[in-house]
């Protein structure tokens, strides 16, 4: 499948790869230049492969309060957004998603690789609720991110859209029919995500490019989100992982409302959950990759779930899933091609708003 921007990607020199059935740009020549453009200026990503699902009906709020581990009652008015995990009965993560509250209900943006199972899960869970769960067809999604993103969007958007965007604070959104503009993103920078009809998205893409906004591919998107301490579904979390094991406890709200997976999470808490996700940075040259074992005190204590060379920090960084509560007393080592390389356990995120912000774990 191709997004409506396929020809624009080819025109921009995009190196296209298959991503869950979609032909998407991995980079347009240099992933690192794209990464740095987003940290220092502005970049535009086509993320139209992601799945948009609208949830409407009388019971939409009650349904989502039951479905999601975060609580949509936090969205006290139209135009607010929320990040949540969607759990199974065992507390395993089916997907992570964004919820946007619109005038007629809620809009969910879920991952593309999990589209089919998410739709089945939502439809099944919706039984007994007066809700309509509908995949929104034919919409494009652009993410415009970077310190200059808001200014440049202000110039590139129509006056009506620019006015709507200027009113928004982080994690707020504005709807206009099917279209949506939101102050959200996946990079740790200022910026917005826009859901638009195909022709409007292509026109905006062209105006942004004319203003010097750099097209950025899925490769840069991955290193940016890693530096920003944001999980990737399928790498850092899946159905075998609960929120506490992937640094998402902050997204789980226990308030007596009974959501899917809550019993399992409470039982895990009772038993003392002993898996967690931390940041690690290399102190020598090298690159961390998913699957590298982490050893400490002569024992394997965890594994890298996502790793990369950080263009901002100029060293190898990663997320490590650590098993057991007291494993960080001895120095941590990553096993890279059979060699033990020292790494430092650190707080997440690594980078926010263009600056290193991690601290050593104690």
């Amino acid at each position, binding site marked *: 499948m191709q997004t409506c921007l396929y020809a624009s990607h080819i025109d921009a020199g995009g190196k296209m790869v298959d991503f869950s059935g979609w032909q998407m740009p*991995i980079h347009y020549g240099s992933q690192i230049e794209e990464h740095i453009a987003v940290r220092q200026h502005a970049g535009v990503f086509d993320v139209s492969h992601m799945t948009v699902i609208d949830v409407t009906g009388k019971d939409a709020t009650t349904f989502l309060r039951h479905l999601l581990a975060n609580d949509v009652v936090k969205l006290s008015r139209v135009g607010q957004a929320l990040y949540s995990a969607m759990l199974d009965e065992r507390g395993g993560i089916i997907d992570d998603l964004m919820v946007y509250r619109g005038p007629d209900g809620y809009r969910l943006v879920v991952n593309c690789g999990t589209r089919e199972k998410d739709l089945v899960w939502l439809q099944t869970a919706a039984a007994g609720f007066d809700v309509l769960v509908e995949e929104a067809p034919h919409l494009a999604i652009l993410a415009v991110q970077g310190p200059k993103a808001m200014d440049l969007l202000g110039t590139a958007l129509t006056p009506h859209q620019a006015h709507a965007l200027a009113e928004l604070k982080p994690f707020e959104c504005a709807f206009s029919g099917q279209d949506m503009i939101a102050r959200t993103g996946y990079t740790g920078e200022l910026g917005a995500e826009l859901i638009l009809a195909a022709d409007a998205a292509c026109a905006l893409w062209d105006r942004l490019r004319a203003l010097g906004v750099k097209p950025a591919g899925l490769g840069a998107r991955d290193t940016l989100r890693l530096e920003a301490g944001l999980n990737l579904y399928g790498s850092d979390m899946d159905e075998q992982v609960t929120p506490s094991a992937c640094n998402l406890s902050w997204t789980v709200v226990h308030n007596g409302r009974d959501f899917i997976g809550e019993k399992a999470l409470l039982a895990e808490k009772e038993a003392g959950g002993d898996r967690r996700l931390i940041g690690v940075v290399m102190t020598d040259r*090298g690159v961390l990759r998913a699957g590298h074992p982490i050893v400490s005190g002569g024992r394997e204590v965890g594994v890298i779930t996502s790793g990369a*060379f950080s263009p901002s920090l100029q060293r190898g960084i990663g997320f490590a899933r650590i098993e057991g509560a007291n494993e960080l007393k001895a120095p941590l080592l990553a096993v890279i*091609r059979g060699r033990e390389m020292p790494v430092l356990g650190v707080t997440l995120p690594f980078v926010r708003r263009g600056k290193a912000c991690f601290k050593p774990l104690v």
Partner: protein
Amino acid sequence: MAEVRDDVRYLATHEWVKLEADGSVVVGISDHAQDALGDVVFVELPEIGTSFVQGSEMAVVESVKAASDIYAPVSGVVVACNSALEDAPETVNDSPYDAGWFVRLTPDDPSSIESLLSPDAYQALCDDETH
């Protein structure tokens, strides 16, 4: 279109090998290889004086995409490494056939380079991979 130099020989694993006047051979990765890897972020080079047999893992190149082994094209001893790649691994992308070289070897048998792929054969291999 990636450049295939005609004054070097190649491995199917995308290393190029150049025979120098002094009988040593210089090894790097092809333009096609650096393009496929994407931005190179780290290069691990062997110690000078290390002996390698043909086909064994001699160095590692890591890009934003993946780690890849660099194989010894012929049996021989390492006499020099391009230490400039430690601080500037992106040189492999910018100049794969010149400043981005990896290792210089003294081959045990200088004629062994003749068994490697010719530029035409390597071009055909790249064409197959691209299509």
